[in-house]
């Protein structure tokens, strides 16, 4: 965008952001300070010493590398699935006419309110009967399936502002609906697709309920680190390490891919300019 902006913007936003992040600073400190020092609060400066004990112990006690890989596989598959299928569906709902359009859309969008707990019971029996327990697909399928509720809505919302002239022009030119989707709409919808990708990545990466139940031999990071917490132990330092490790990847994804949001990334091949 433009480089000319007043200084007040970063100052204001920065101040709020720093205040916002205080709890996360607390998280970091909890992972770095000996647990005995912080029972009165992690902000206490009286016994300030830093230690890598918690980090070392989590690193050595838990097979993080394998879990990382499993998390990655699971999340990547789920994210790609949504990123490919959601825009396609959104395009269909927005620009094509077909029977049942409204009804299907209502069903899909409302499914978002379905809490995960509702899904796990019946899916468990289904996977058990089809032998998919302990396979990555037992989680990928629900992740992608449930994502449509919000991802279709998101892309469709962005498409509502899509210039209709382009579509009409394509029609006039003899472009089939599929072709219009592929050549006209998709290249200009990078922003919502990136947004969908980031969110889906985040939610799948952080998800624990389904993998906890359906996966046994290879578990993702969240499930592995859930065992860090003992039932009667205050090993908050280790839990904090677990949280930070888990959080690092989605954050990196966000930083990397949010540049797709910047103006100019989605160039319009035929706007008013």
């Amino acid at each position, binding site marked *: 965008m433009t480089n000319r902006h007043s200084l007040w913007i970063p100052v204001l936003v920065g101040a709020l952001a720093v205040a916002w992040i205080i709890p996360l600073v607390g998280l970091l400190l909890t992972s770095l300070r000996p647990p005995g020092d912080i029972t*009165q609060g992690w902000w206490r400066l009286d016994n300030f010493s830093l230690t890598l004990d918690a980090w070392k112990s989590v690193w050595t006690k838990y097979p993080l590398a394998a879990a990382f890989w499993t998390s990655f596989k699971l999340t990547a598959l789920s994210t790609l699935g949504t990123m490919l299928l959601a825009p396609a569906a959104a395009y269909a709902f927005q620009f094509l006419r077909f029977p049942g359009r409204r009804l299907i859309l209502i069903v899909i969008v409302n499914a978002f309110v379905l809490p995960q707990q509702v899904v796990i019971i019946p899916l468990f029996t289904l996977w058990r009967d089809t032998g998919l327990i302990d396979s990555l697909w037992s989680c990928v399928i629900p992740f992608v399936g449930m994502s449509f509720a919000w991802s279709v809505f998101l892309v469709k919302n962005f498409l509502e502002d899509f210039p209709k002239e382009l579509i009409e022009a394509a029609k006039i030119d003899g472009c089939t609906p599929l072709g219009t989707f592929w050549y006209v709409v998709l290249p200009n919808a990078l922003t919502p697709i990136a947004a969908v990708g980031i969110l889906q990545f985040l939610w799948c990466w952080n998800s624990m309920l389904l993998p906890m139940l359906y996966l*046994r031999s290879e578990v993702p990071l969240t499930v592995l680190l859930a065992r860090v*917490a*003992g039932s009667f*132990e*205050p090993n908050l330092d280790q839990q904090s390490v677990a949280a930070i490790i888990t959080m690092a990847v989605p954050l990196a994804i966000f930083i990397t891919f949010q540049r797709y949001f910047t103006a100019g990334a989605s160039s319009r091949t035929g706007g008013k300019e």
Partner: protein
Amino acid sequence: MSVVLPTFVESAIPVLDAIIKVDIGSFLLMDREEASHRGRNLNMNMSGSQKRPARLSSALFVALATTSTALVTTLGGALAAPKGELVVVNWLGGSELATMQAFEKAFTEKYPEVTIKEIPITWSGDARGAIRTTLMGGEKVDILINTWPSFRQELVENGVLRPLDDVWTAKGWDDKLTKSWRDLGSVDGKVYGIPYNYGDRSGLWYRVDTLKTAGIETPPATWDELLATFPKLKANGVTPYIVPGKFWAHAEVFETLLIRTAGADASRKLGAHEIAWNSDIVKTTLKKWREMLDAGCCADVATMLGTDWDNASDIVLKDAKGGFFLLGMWINNRAEENYGLKPGVDYGLVQFPALGLGHDADSSVDAKEFNAVTSGQNPEAADAFLDFAISAEGSAIFAKAGLASPSKATDSSLYGPVIRASNDVVAKADVVFVLGDRLPAELGDEYRTQLQKFLQDPSDANIDRVTDALEAKAKELY
């Protein structure tokens, strides 16, 4: 925080699968033909809504029938060394997990032909949901770790657990576990659970110097002495008694008072709904608690309801801002390892003071036990595992980790002073399992909420409301 772990909860699975309903124990003693015939009948008896799993379970029956012959042969050679794979469902976390794994390792060192396969279960909120999921998922499990009598009952009613009476006699466990432990692990007269760890749940923890600086020379032994400590502690800026009312730990106070007032037997009967919740026994107990509140024991209601057990522990033992609190034996480990305190020197445990009503030695306890699961493929390795748990060398592993074992064979010199003292008391007392874990889940939840309501307003009128609500709930369930 107590039993909370990250996120969600697994729920139970609709039992659509006849695997659970099959009494595999009886299969082992039948011949193959009878077994598959039985299986076919069971299949046909399933209700119509359970169509889908029928396919699966008939396949499973064939598999079971085939293996049952093999098992019969193996069982016949029960005196042979156990071998093969032993499947253990392990939902523990943190240091308990580490201790359990050390125990498993010792077991495999003793019986090198056995390999242990752990089914790790991650859970949050309540492990029972995840355990149910696993069992109903068709996992063939040999050993289950259990800490809820009500759950044990549910599993027994659904045919999931194998009764251990025969094994008990065969392996001569009477010389390792007393009859009261056998009863604690039984359902309807048959024993299903072998406890490997237990803890006293009726002891008050305190910090030695907190009492001394308040001019209290010895910890209170009677009710009146306890109440007398309150003003002294308050004068020193210390909250005399910490009630961790946030989730579940406040219920312990009620239960211990109940036991002191009317005996461990009353708690037993209440758990079985042989005493009504709105009976005088319960009301008297609540009034006793009110007496404590009126004597200035505790902070304001909001603080009580905002304090969880770990806060309470920190306040009393770490920050020395509290006088007493009532909680289980894991506090001992917490105090030693997390606060770096020395048992007996820096902190101590005193049994809840006497009320002089004749029940002053009674106690509530919690315990972790091993159950043998019917779907297991390796019953004699499972039995050896159970035996090892209460043997001298097996229980030593738990003892060294600061977990008290109920076995008579355990070397008590491995315990620190606090545990040893509490063991002595419990060994002589009439003990009952913690009430909260004996109640059906719905009632347990209501019980904790209603006790919170009591704390908000301990008046007579509210006591009536609270107890009536509990009785109404109990009536629905029993």
